[in-house]
């Protein structure tokens, strides 16, 4: 069963002085997210990621189409007991301490004392804020706010967690911490839906991804499926190559670099691979590796989506 089911979702914003000019932020988006998946929602700024998340959280109404979470329409208030949400660049009541904020949120979920006190303590431990639990949020760094944001999103032990750009603005350490929280949620069987444009994080975490461009779905599937659509080239690494042979090899490949005593050759033709290997081995060179070069998500992103930068205005 799909945990999140998005069908033909479209959102038009009205802009201009008289609000008479519609701008399409989301165009006929259909998507399924399965139980237990870590699902990456990718796209450049303005692609419609936050708009989608806001519709899923019922903060925005779709112009047309529908969406269901856990089999219930997104407008269902009772369904929201089973989900968690971290908004983009979250901001919480800065006059509260983390303990007060989590207690407040716990009350909204109907969690009562003493279970709530215990829950709050363990959450503060989990996101590493136990020591500052009595400090007002106005004194928090961005990374700390992000961590309290994650804590408030998972206080109800949700079955699905929605995270809008959870790594944005964090330093490498902060990003790793968020990554670890997402991994531990996955281990608990929680479905995680997160939007991001930080690709290494997505590559490291996601079972499946969707790529959005100008409000339209560009690609969806397992990361390997999307990326292995084309093997760009092969990289051959050799060592103990004689200088004369190196010159000859240069003419046989697309690119050649010497790193230390190793020769890195790159060719886009698989016939060339065989020729290079035959030549090298016949001349006593030693083969270290032959690897297909796949585009990274970043390459894919740049290639497929790069031109979408001037897409719909950010909402």
């Amino acid at each position, binding site marked *: 069963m799909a945990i999140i089911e998005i069908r033909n979702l479209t959102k038009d914003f009205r802009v201009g002085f008289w609000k008479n000019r519609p701008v399409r932020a989301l165009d006929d988006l259909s998507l399924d997210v399965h139980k237990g998946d870590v699902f990456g929602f990718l796209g450049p700024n303005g692609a419609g990621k936050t708009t989608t998340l*806001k519709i899923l959280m019922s903060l925005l109404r779709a112009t047309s189409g529908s969406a269901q979470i856990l089999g219930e329409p997104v407008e269902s208030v009772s369904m929201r007991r089973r989900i968690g949400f971290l908004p983009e660049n*979250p901001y919480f009541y800065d006059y509260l301490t983390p303990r007060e904020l989590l207690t407040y949120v716990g009350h909204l979920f*109907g969690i009562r004392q003493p279970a709530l006190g215990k829950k709050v303590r363990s959450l503060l431990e989990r996101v590493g804020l136990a020591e500052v639990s009595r400090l007002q949020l106005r004194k928090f760094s961005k990374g700390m706010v992000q961590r309290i944001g994650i804590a408030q999103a998972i206080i109800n032990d949700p079955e699905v967690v929605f995270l809008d750009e959870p790594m944005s603005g964090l330093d490498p350490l902060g990003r790793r911490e968020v990554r670890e929280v997402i991994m531990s949620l996955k281990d608990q069987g929680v479905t995680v839906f997160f939007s991001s444009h930080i690709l290494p994080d997505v590559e490291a975490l996601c079972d499946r991804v969707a790529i959005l461009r100008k409000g339209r779905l560009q690609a969806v599937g397992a990361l390997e499926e999307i990326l292995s659509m084309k093997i760009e080239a092969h990289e051959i690494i050799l060592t103990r190559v004689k200088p004369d042979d190196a010159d000859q090899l240069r003419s046989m490949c697309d690119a050649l670099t010497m790193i230390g005593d190793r020769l890195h050759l790159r060719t886009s033709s698989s016939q060339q691979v065989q020729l290079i290997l035959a030549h090298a081995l016949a001349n006593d060179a030693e083969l270290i590796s032959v690897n297909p070069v796949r585009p990274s998500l970043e390459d894919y992103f740049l290639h497929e989506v790069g031109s979408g930068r001037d897409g719909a205005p950010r909402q």
Partner: protein
Amino acid sequence: MGHLGSDVPMRILAIARNTFRENIRDKILYNLILFALIMILSSIALGQLTLGLESKMIIDLGLTSVSVFGTLIAIFIGISLVYKEMEKRTVYALLAKPVHRWEFIVGKYLGLLFTLLVNVVIMAIGIALTLLYQGGTETATFARLLPAIYLIYLSLALTTALALVFSTFSTPALSALFTLFLWIIGHFNADLLQFANLTKSATVGWVAKSLYYALPNFSNFTTLDSRNIIQSAAHAQAIDAGAILWITAYGLLYCCGLVTVAIAVFSRRDFK
């Protein structure tokens, strides 16, 4: 966790408590209360000028301070609270929780009412202490203060409800302007009726009459039987209980109506 429905009071109270906490952690509020207390205390000095009428002076000036500063506080907290939640986007995380939008507005309003109550009580205690310090005030006089303070509080509840409605769709500056505008018109509401009766044009008369009934009638809370309630309290005149009951019903009904409008506007909002 209980059933969703049974948690409604718990959620509304949590929102109300957080609203109250936000207010009491705001320093501007303290300045306003401090200023009101200084005004009340200064009535001692003014009382010296009016020999034999010291306690009248204290009550007069004290209740006027409660009314004026209470109104300022009511507008100030009413216009900013919902707007701030939208502007700072704290409402995003909140409405993604199992919270109905109407619960949010009702919780906010209750939090505002409680903040106002605490403020009015503090100022009333200020008046009482000033009277005690002055000495020579009869117990009955203290009792006469209560209906006046109660009516002032009702008018503050109405003022903050007006501000709340505006804050669901407008900026704090505009909301303050609208609220103040209606507050002023509301005090001269009776003139509208008089105008309606005097005018020769049926249409103008009808419009003026409709406005008279539609706009909040703040003079209801300040004038009883064509006597100013603050003056009545100062002169230790009795206030009719039936009239107070009627005004309470009017105030409650009007506040409920305004909160319903605020809910209707807020429920239709897209949070871009």
